């Protein structure tokens, strides 16, 4: 990847967990569940367009394959929770659940579509 592509990919992956961590909780505290929907529109909607949708989208993919910005959200929020004291060992079960659930979803989507 060219240097510019590396820079934009890192930036695109930086934005999502940064804003999720700073904004989402505050929205939910103020407005309850509706705050969550609002946060979803504002944070995920805008950053999806920046990272994947627009012409020179920030997360540059390789020739084939797709690394979704959901991975950035997961890794970033995980890092933040570990830094503020979350236990890594206790999260292994959920990690396994995410991998298995995601894989089964991929299989089902191929079978359906």
């Amino acid at each position, binding site marked *: 990847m060219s240097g510019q592509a590396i820079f934009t990919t890192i930036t695109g992956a930086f934005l999502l967990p940064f804003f999720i961590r700073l904004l989402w909780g505050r929205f939910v505290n103020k407005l309850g569940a509706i705050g969550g929907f609002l946060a979803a529109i504002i944070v995920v909607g805008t950053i*999806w367009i920046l990272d994947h949708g627009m012409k020179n989208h920030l997360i540059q993919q*390789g020739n084939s394959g*797709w690394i979704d910005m959901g991975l950035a959200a997961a890794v*970033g929020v995980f890092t933040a929770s570990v830094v*503020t004291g979350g236990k890594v060992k206790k999260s292994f079960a959920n990690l396994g659940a995410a*991998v298995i659930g995601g*894989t089964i979803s991929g299989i089902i*989507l191929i079978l359906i579509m």
Partner: protein
Amino acid sequence: MRFLRNTFGYFLAATVINGLWGIFLNKFGLLGAYGAAFFLTGSMWCVNHYIGLIKHDDDSAFIDMGLGVAIGLIAKNYMVNGLESMINSAPTLLYVIIGAALGGYMAVLIETHIIEKDPTEINSKKESLESVNIELVDGKLEV
């Protein structure tokens, strides 16, 4: 049971978000991402993290439903395009992980700075209170 429940939560998020996002984009173009974010991401967040289909221990690190979404797409690509697509996407994977870790860490730094109280502010309030209230200094006025 808890493992099955968690797995189902991640599975649901991945299937709904990956399967239906394209519908919004096809119908409304690029700005359909906002509709998709509202309906799909919003409702999946509500079910998984707000209502709590995905259960975390109180002190365990947080595994966001986005991981299920991302792994779903990776698995789908592997089955359609084979191992070569995974090798092609390895650089992107590396830089996304680096950027995301930086993002989460910086957010924590800023959060802790927002929260911490400025200790000098509290001291000076107390000092100014004591300097004007002679009764306080004499010990006759309780605060």
